[in-house]
């Protein structure tokens, strides 16, 4: 009874607060800008002349329709393109033009936003790709690869319903993916108890070394014999002239040998077992021979294997990794690989790390491990992995272990090899020794049958004794769960049954017919769409179940679990205390990672991290694990603030950093051991702590080779100050005047300040970017920078460049000045309120699945008010408690 009363109350409250305020749906372009229009445009574009059929004397400064916006857009475009006023006519004063453009561009951003405001209307949406995958996992207990589905959106959040389309191809993909997920789930269920274990000795690699060295030596012997004969023939007095002529024609020695047929008395390669002369050339002094021979002299090479850097092609001798094949008959499931391993005690720190994965030539690294054991006292490292039905082919079942070949080792392996060879005459030390590897398919005795199969409640393999009624009941239960407790029509179930029946009658077995029929349920609209039915109203309060689903899709990107559902059904979910407790439970659950990852990724625009390839020749300590750790740092930092209910300010400035060993090494922070992320206290003068000190942010603000002060400045304005600059305008004349000059970054960007159409935005963006120039393209601290013009191949022209000391000092446009990065960071941190506001706006959009609009101002204000000093968790709680969140 109490619950009902509450609902009525809220519904009536809404009538006043939700509908968009008439006044707020338009944007005013400050009337003081009229002078600029009158001074510069009106002479031609007036009522009389109407030049180009365009008038500005009757412009509306109240932008309340897309039509008016279009007119102003046209003015903005032609000023940006430098088309107006036309050449030869009096041009506006540069500062006035910059100010006008600045004002108009920002007004347009606001106007577009207001005009596309959905006024709180939430469009029903289908599950996005992420949610679809998560939902299948919750129902069936399996993870499937859904990458073939089209990406959901290129801009905005992936939860915004209006942007989530559906195409016919997609529909067919859902059918196929549904079947795939079901078959995977059936297999896991039926094979749950299976246990297999096998140990593989690593010295198979030593045997390969032996064979390869033998072959190389034999080849060398034959090569040298042939060459001796050839030289003998070349030295004959009667061949003297001929040989000299050949040598003149082919200055490269090996090329002369190619012409052996022209030299009387020269030996035929075939007699020495060669098809071609180039085999002899390469066989004469094999580059890696001494290194490979050295391997065989290593202690314990007979009882295990050493892995090192790649030398020759892995097809001939895979020196860089060991690999082991999971027997093809072992079923999908959870696996464990154990390795007995040790590293040379006094070897450099960065070579005592291994990577583990599947499919050495193409596969991704699944985990990275630091070795603490030694050759004398090896340790055992356990590396879990999962095989699915898709892992059918040999290469997909082959696990590998290799040294953490920071990419430099691989991409510049010859260079690295030579550097090491210079030191010891041989090449890179053999550091990592492996005794054996054991692969185990883990039985899952404690496995809980996944909810959807449990709901189904019938045998997956045998329909003996199953009556029509049993199947109808099974389908109904399965459907209810899949449709998230929405009512299911009998007619629908009947149709599913008929399809099952016709497959059975057509001779298909029970298991396959069942899978086929169930896949249709997983492609039906009531599964694919998160629906919140309305009956003739504009808005309504969500039912308990709908409310629970909105909450769980917000935080887990997945359906509510049994606990949340029962609270929803009882109506207790409307109780703020219960709701807060459940929200915290969801956030703390492992599934809560979905929020951290997917929200943070989209909020901060981390997709840019994958746009560029870092130049690892220039940044030697950077590699894929650093990149992974740098991305993780962002997530961990958000998670830290969230789970400790800290102020958002900590994301702007903090006296700690979240780091694991890889990242700490990269940052030069000492004393961090182990693969997990933890809070590390920073020294007082550290530039780390807060987003502006993170490698991920600096990487995004550059192209992997050079920094981009513009990208960085724009990002800070967008995400930290929450004052996004307008999108880069089209058709602005390009600056190429300075292209061949040797200039500092600042000098080059000065060109941005010359033209008013550039200056209007860049005067805000550039100073911030320059303030961050002490971070190089991978976010390491530097005091100096340099510029070398490039040749066409992108190589630096060394004798032409220059180096300068970085000057980070600057002043925000019409704002505070700063001497260095630290002062800039303080200014940013003093703007926590704006930063938090931006966070709130993003959060509302993400959680509600619609763009944030003017109508949300009150909501956001109250979220800020409830935040008890910008605490992230309080903000989330405030949102889920808000009336809007429980309203359709």
């Amino acid at each position, binding site marked *: 009874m109490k619950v009902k009363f509450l609902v009525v109350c809220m519904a009536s409250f809404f009538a006043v607060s939700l509908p968009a305020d008439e006044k707020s749906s338009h944007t005013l372009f400050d009337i003081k800008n009229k002078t600029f229009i009158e001074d510069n445009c009106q002479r031609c574009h007036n009522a009389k002349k109407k030049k180009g059929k365009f008038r500005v004397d009757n412009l509306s400064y109240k932008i309340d329709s*897309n039509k008016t916006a*279009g007119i102003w*857009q046209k003015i903005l475009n032609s000023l940006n*393109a430098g088309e107006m006023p036309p050449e030869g006519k009096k041009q506006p004063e540069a500062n006035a033009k910059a100010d006008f453009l600045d004002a108009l561009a920002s007004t347009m951003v606001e106007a*577009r936003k207001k*005009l*596309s*405001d959905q*006024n709180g*209307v939430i*469009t*029903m949406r289908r599950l996005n790709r992420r949610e679809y995958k998560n939902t299948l996992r919750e129902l069936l207990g399996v993870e499937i690869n859904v990458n073939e589905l*089209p*990406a959901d959106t*290129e*801009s*905005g959040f992936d939860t915004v319903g*209006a*942007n989530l389309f*559906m*195409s*016919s*191809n997609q*529909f*067919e993909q859902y059918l196929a993916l549904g079947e795939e997920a079901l078959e995977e789930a059936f297999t896991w269920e039926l094979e749950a108890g299976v246990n297999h274990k096998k140990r593989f000795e690593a010295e198979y690699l030593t045997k390969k070394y032996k064979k390869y060295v033998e072959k190389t030596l034999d080849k060398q012997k034959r090569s040298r014999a042939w060459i001796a004969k050839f030289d003998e023939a070349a030295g004959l007095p009667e061949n003297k002239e001929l040989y000299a002529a050949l040598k003149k024609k082919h200055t490269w020695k090996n090329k002369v040998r190619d012409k052996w047929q022209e030299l009387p008395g020269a030996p035929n390669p075939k007699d020495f077992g060669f098809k071609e002369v180039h085999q002899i050339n390469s066989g004469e002094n094999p580059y890696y021979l001494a290194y490979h021979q050295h391997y065989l002299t290593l202690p314990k090479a007979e009882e295990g294997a050493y892995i090192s850097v790649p030398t020759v092609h892995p097809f001939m001798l895979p020196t860089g990794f060991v690999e082991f094949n999971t027997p093809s008959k072992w079923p999908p499931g959870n696996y464990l690989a154990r390795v007995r391993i040790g590293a040379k005690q006094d070897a450099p720190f960065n070579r005592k790390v291994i990577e583990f994965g599947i499919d050495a030539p193409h596969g991704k690294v699944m985990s990275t491990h630091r070795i603490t054991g030694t050759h004398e006292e090896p340790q055992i490292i356990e590396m879990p992995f999962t095989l699915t039905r898709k892992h059918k082919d040999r290469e997909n079942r082959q696990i590998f272990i290799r040294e953490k070949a920071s990419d430099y080792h691989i991409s510049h392996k010859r260079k690295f090899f030579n550097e090491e060879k210079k030191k010891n005459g041989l090449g890179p030390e053999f550091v990592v020794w492996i005794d054996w590897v054991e692969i185990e398919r883990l039985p899952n005795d404690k496995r809980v049958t996944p909810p959807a199969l449990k709901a189904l409640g019938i045998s997956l393999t045998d329909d003996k004794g199953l009556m029509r009624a049993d199947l109808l009941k099974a389908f109904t239960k399965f459907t209810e769960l899949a449709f998230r407790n929405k009512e299911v*029509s009998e*007619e*629908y179930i009947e*149709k*599913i049954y008929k*399809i099952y029946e*016709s497959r059975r009658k*057509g001779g298909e077995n029970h298991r396959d017919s069942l899978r086929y029929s169930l896949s*249709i349920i997983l*492609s*039906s*609209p009531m599964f694919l*769409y998160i*629906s*919140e*039915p*309305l009956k*003739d109203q504009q808005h309504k309060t969500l039912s308990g179940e709908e409310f629970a689903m909105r909450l769980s899709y917000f935080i887990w990107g997945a359906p509510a679990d049994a606990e949340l559902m029962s609270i929803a059904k009882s109506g207790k979910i409307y109780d703020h205390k219960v709701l807060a407790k459940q929200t915290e439970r969801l956030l703390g659950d492992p599934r809560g990672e979905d929020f951290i990852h997917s929200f943070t990724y989209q909020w901060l625009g981390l997709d840019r991290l*994958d*746009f*560029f*390839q870092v130049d690892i020749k220039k940044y030697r300590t950077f590699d894929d694990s650093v990149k992974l750790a740098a991305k993780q740092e962002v997530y961990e930092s958000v998670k830290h603030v969230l789970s400790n209910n800290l102020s958002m300010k900590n994301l702007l400035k903090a006296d700690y950093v979240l780091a694991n060993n890889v990242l700490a090494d990269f940052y030069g922070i000492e004393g961090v051991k182990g693969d997990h992320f933890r809070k590390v206290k920073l020294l007082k003068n550290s530039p780390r702590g807060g987003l502006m000190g993170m490698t991920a942010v600096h990487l995004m603000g550059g*192209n992997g080779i050079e920094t981009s002060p513009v990208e960085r400045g724009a990002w800070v304005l967008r995400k930290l100050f929450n004052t996004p600059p307008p999108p880069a*305008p*089209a058709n*602005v004349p390009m600056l*190429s005047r300075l*292209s061949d000059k040797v200039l500092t970054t600042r000098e080059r960007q000065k060109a941005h300040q010359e033209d008013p159409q550039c200056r209007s935005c860049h005067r805000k963006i550039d100073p911030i970017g320059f303030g961050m120039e002490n971070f190089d393209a991978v976010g390491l601290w530097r005091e100096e920078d340099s510029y070398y*013009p*490039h*040749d*066409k*191949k*992108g190589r630096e022209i060394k004798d032409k460049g220059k180096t300068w000391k970085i000057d980070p000092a600057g002043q925000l446009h019409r704002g505070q000045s700063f001497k260095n990065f630290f002062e800039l960071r303080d200014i940013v941190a003093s703007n926590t309120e704006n930063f938090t506001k931006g966070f709130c706006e993003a959060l509302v959009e993400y959680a509600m699945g619609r*763009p944030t609009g003017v109508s949300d101002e009150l909501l956001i204000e109250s979220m800020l008010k409830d935040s008890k000093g910008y605490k992230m968790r309080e903000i989330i709680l405030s949102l889920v408690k808000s009336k809007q969140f429980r309203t359709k």
Partner: protein
Amino acid sequence: MNTTRRQFLRSSSALIALPVFSSFEHKAFAAAKKSKNQLPPKRLMFLSFGWGVTEESWYPDINTPGADYKLPDGLSPLKRHKKDFSVIQGLYNKHSHDGHSGSTFWLTGANRYSQAGVSFTNSVSADQVAAQQFGRHTRFTSMPLNGSHPKISGDGHGEGLSLAWDNSGKPVAGYNSPFAAYHKLFSKGDVSIDQLKTMLNQKRSILDTIQGNAKYLQKKLGKNDSLKLDEYLASIRDIETRLVKEEQWFDIPKPKATLKEPPKEADGKQDIKLMYDIMIAALQTDSTRVITYRQPVRTLLKSIGVNVNQHDMSHYHQTRAEKLDASERRDKAQSALLSGLLDKLKSTKEADGSSLYDHTSLVYGSNIRTGHSLDNCPTIVAGGGAKIKMGENLVVRKDTPLCNLWLTLLKESGVKVDKHGDSTGVLDEIKA
């Protein structure tokens, strides 16, 4: 035609008109196709690349319009075809303001802000307008090909799944590889007609079940959501339309493959070349008459040994050097590929001895000129399908709608249409 299915079709709220014609009409057509007296049909091809071109070396001098122009460096690989294509200068989409979406509105000319209350709308693309008419005669209504990876950004095309957008402005998915397109065109599968019929019937019962579920849900939805669900219903009807088509084409076997099965993966340049071969094969076998292709750029650069990031390349203006070099090499590589395509269009013969080229209109271009510049969109037109002047540097009035070109091509190819996107009329000055 099966009555129950007709009823079933009729019962769906008709957003898309189904191409309904009797199998008699259809067979009459198939027979006509074999007749030598029949003129070869008109075809349309739209090819687009992201990231624009090098403006200094791709465009002919705007001051030398007409046939007597110097072929610029970026187009030099097209030298042997100089008389058989034209460059059109001065076209643009007036509603495009975003410097990074090279293809989203290229064929539609739509204003993304045209509808209040949403931040993105699009409208039907020119190819789909043609497909509604030409598509009745072929196994495939149209063939949208998409070489730009949907997940990895980096091809500068912007939103969409291909160049094609349907009648309600929703993205149309494309075939993502030459391999996939090849099998669609030629793979027969090893099912008998009876099996195929059973399969189609099963598919129909799936669609029926699912549509029932949609209707059931729709009854309870508010107006907005109900519109959203229409997308789902439309996608089901698309499939239904395809099934109707499959049924009609039952007794006409798929054509014999005119080329080898392409590899599953190929490097950028090879990938584009293979896709071009697929286009020729599709036209040659009259499997479709309307083709679009969203070309990859990222992988193309990689395959020609350019290591500059594609976005950086498009902003070559500031530091030039390797970025400019990359941009120029991209232009040449693209022109060389196009040149190869034109070779094949010319050398592939129709039944009456004329060439494919004679009946095809090919457009090659982008919504982006260079950097963030969206005016004077790079545009090349080739082929005799629409009687456009060939061999000329055609300079039209600055800021003429691109849609005027689409309208011209559509009309001249025989499509009944009076307006497209923001078109203001046809381009009489480019007609031969």
